[in-house]
């Protein structure tokens, strides 16, 4: 640990906190339909797109109609991506002559990118053509992020509006997200990345003689344009197998810092958008503070843990911090911060090998994901997940003081609470069941690479990450038998791919539908003015209550599992 490392963490928090109200206010204008600068250029494009879709901006839907549009769009996305993956051998921009994907890998990958997970059972540069990366994977990086944000905005309308049943028009929210939020940032961001050395080229691959007389082959591609949306949309799927540790994806500590900010910019900014839309910015800040508290606690533990050596290093006679699986330019400080950022957000991009983290350092990313990706979380999905926890906290407080719980003046009744419980414990239950299946069957066990507790952690991490739509991995899991275009895979691989693919779909759409249903139940409710007995939800007391509720529900579910894996390893120098 050093001063620069801590200073970098503080600097990151300061900039993120400063960006939050700015970005939040801009997004509130975008979804409120207020005039923005880009209107002049993009307005005609936007209106033309609505005409093509056969919709009108002001044709609003109730929650069922909204959910139906979301599901049809996601189904079309899934089908389109699956088709591209299965036929990539006949597409252009395939310099390595890669063959098409096998059905199981293509299903897992399509589910992965449509659900904003970006779990990768393949190595990008050796499996995917440039055409697939651009027209298949990167398109879903935009689309799945757009869906998440659109749904969140609809859910917030459920809290903000006072009558009727309409919560917005999905096509309007999706289009404006992509045109006014994602695309402008991506254009500027990708050009910045190129200027710093992130590649963007269709030439090559070039093989040459190295200085010492060996050979090396540089594989280039449209990386920068995909790298920026991969972080901004909390997607996380790397162009290269080693993701953002690859210098061609993340060349300097400066690009690294900008990428970390772009991961959290939208999830953080949306808390401010929420505050503005419900008419009380303090409500947004309360949620931002609760998220930040949990985030900072995790960063501190990872940084401290990684500054120590591992059991293997002890045995090898090595001293110093754990540089295994880390890049020199990022060092321990930037690698630790990135590991925390990418797992509180459901991004899953990595700039260091997660499996090589110290035992305790690796426990934090796993715990972050276990919280249900509500601490910032995925773009949109993080905040609607968090709002379910807010309702749960309000309900628990209501039970304690014996009053009907209300939030933002709306009474929270039996229907909402039933939905909230389904939405908050559904995914943790899914994770535990699926992990149990994976570690108790021979098909699942064959995917494990590391021995001892680490092998269990690999499995738990794999399904926690997929079901919560994170996408980072303890990459030894199936990493040693990674399928590629020329390897149709064994039954073992098929098993893990199907189990993971189904987990990602359930983990994405169950909480999403629950959140929309809650919005549908709340939208028409009258607002009662706050009285003396009303519990305020914009105070430090409520922040503590909210943090406590999240830890209680999400983390406690996983403490026994965490004990069996990373915690037991952190307490011993035993080698396995």
């Amino acid at each position: 640990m050093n001063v620069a490392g801590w200073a970098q963490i503080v600097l990151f928090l300061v900039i993120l906190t400063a960006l939050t109200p700015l970005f939040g206010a801009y997004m509130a204008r975008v979804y409120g339909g207020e005039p923005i600068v880009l209107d002049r250029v993009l307005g005609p494009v936007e209106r033309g797109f609505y005409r093509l879709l056969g919709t009108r901006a002001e044709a609003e839907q109730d929650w069922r109609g909204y959910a139906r549009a979301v599901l049809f769009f996601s189904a079309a996305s899934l089908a389109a991506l699956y088709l591209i993956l299965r036929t990539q051998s006949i597409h252009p921009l395939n310099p390595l002559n890669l063959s098409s994907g096998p059905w199981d890998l293509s299903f897992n990958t399509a589910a992965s990118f449509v659900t904003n997970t970006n779990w990768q059972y393949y190595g990008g540069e050796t499996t995917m053509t440039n055409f697939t990366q651009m027209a298949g994977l990167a398109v879903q990086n935009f689309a799945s992020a757009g869906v998440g944000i659109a749904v969140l905005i609809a859910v917030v309308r459920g809290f903000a509006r006072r009558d009727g049943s309409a919560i917005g028009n999905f096509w309007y929210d999706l289009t404006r997200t992509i045109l006014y939020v994602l695309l402008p940032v991506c254009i500027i961001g990708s050009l910045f990345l190129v200027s710093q050395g992130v590649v963007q080229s269709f030439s090559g691959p070039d093989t040459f003689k190295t200085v010492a007389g060996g050979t090396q082959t540089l594989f280039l591609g449209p990386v920068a344009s995909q790298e920026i949306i991969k972080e901004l949309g909390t997607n996380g799927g790397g162009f290269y197998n080693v993701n953002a540790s690859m210098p061609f994806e993340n060349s300097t500590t400066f690009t690294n810092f900008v990428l970390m900010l772009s991961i959290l910019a939208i999830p953080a900014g949306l808390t401010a958008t929420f505050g503005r839309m419900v008419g009380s910015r303090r409500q947004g800040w309360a949620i931002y503070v609760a998220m930040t508290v949990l985030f900072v606690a995790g960063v501190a533990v990872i940084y401290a843990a990684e500054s120590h050596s591992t059991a293997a290093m002890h045995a090898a006679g090595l001293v110093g911090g754990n540089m295994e699986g880390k890049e020199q330019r990022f060092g321990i400080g930037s690698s630790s911060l990135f590991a925390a950022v990418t797992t509180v957000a459901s991004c899953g991009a990595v700039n260091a090998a997660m499996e090589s983290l110290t035992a305790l350092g690796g426990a934090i990313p796993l715990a972050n994901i276990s919280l249900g990706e509500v601490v910032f979380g995925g773009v949109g999905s993080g905040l609607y997940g968090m709002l379910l926890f807010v309702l749960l906290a309000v309900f628990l407080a209501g039970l304690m003081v014996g009053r009907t719980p209300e939030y933002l003046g709306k009474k929270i009744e039996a229907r909402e609470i039933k939905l909230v419980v389904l939405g908050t414990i559904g995914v943790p239950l899914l994770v535990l069941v699926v992990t149990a299946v994976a570690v108790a069957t021979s098909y699942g066990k064959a995917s494990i690479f590391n021995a001892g507790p680490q092998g269990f952690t690999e499995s738990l991490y794999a399904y926690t990450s997929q079901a919560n739509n994170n996408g980072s991995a303890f990459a030894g899991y199936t990493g040693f038998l990674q399928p590629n275009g020329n390897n149709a895979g064994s039954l073992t691989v098929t098993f893990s791919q199907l189990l993971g693919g189904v987990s990602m779909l359930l983990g994405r759409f169950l909480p999403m539908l629950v959140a929309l249903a809650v919005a549908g139940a709340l939208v028409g409710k009258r607002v009662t003015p706050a009285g003396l007995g009303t519990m305020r939800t914009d105070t430090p007391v409520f922040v503590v209550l909210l943090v406590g509720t999240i830890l209680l529900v999400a983390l406690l579910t996983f403490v026994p599992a965490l004990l069996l894996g990373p915690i037991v390893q952190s307490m011993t120098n035993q080698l396995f």
Partner: protein
Amino acid sequence: MRKDIRSAVVAIVVMTIVLGLLYPLAITGIGQVAFPNAADGSPVKVDGKVVGSKLIGQDFSTGPNAKRYFQSRPSVTGYAPNATFFNNRGPNQATLAVQQRRFVLDYLQREQPYDPDLKASDVPSDAATTSASGVDPQISLANARIQAARVAKVRGLPIDRVRALIDENTDGRFAGVLGDPGVNVLELNLALDAETRR
């Protein structure tokens, strides 16, 4: 229902064309014009021939001249930038301990003849651990300073000159706080070659 299906299909087709083709092609066009060298992987040329990329580490440990060069960090991929993967051995794995022990012994074997006091506990962490990308272009300053003794002796250069070249090829922390300082091994070795040739 039918209308939703139609909208969904049209949306994904339009998005594939605009976001999947026009956007990356436009960025490629602008990037290639504005930052041609960076967009093409920052190639490094010697006598007009590409010998590497500034951003990609390479192997200096084989061949007759290995001792004349600073050595990159260990790599599980053989420094392949076109088929990357992680080491993926956990913190308590016996196989990792064996691997790291071998890296320590290799390092000592190479450097001890030129630095007799060097012990295992002096070996910098980055010198005996695999990098994430397998093509880490940098090593730590501590690592470079230890190797300097060997390189100076073998090349017959004054140690101060080698140290000065290390400093010239070190990227500091960005803005004073971001990341860790690192020495670019390829650029340092090329600078040494240029120095010795002169």
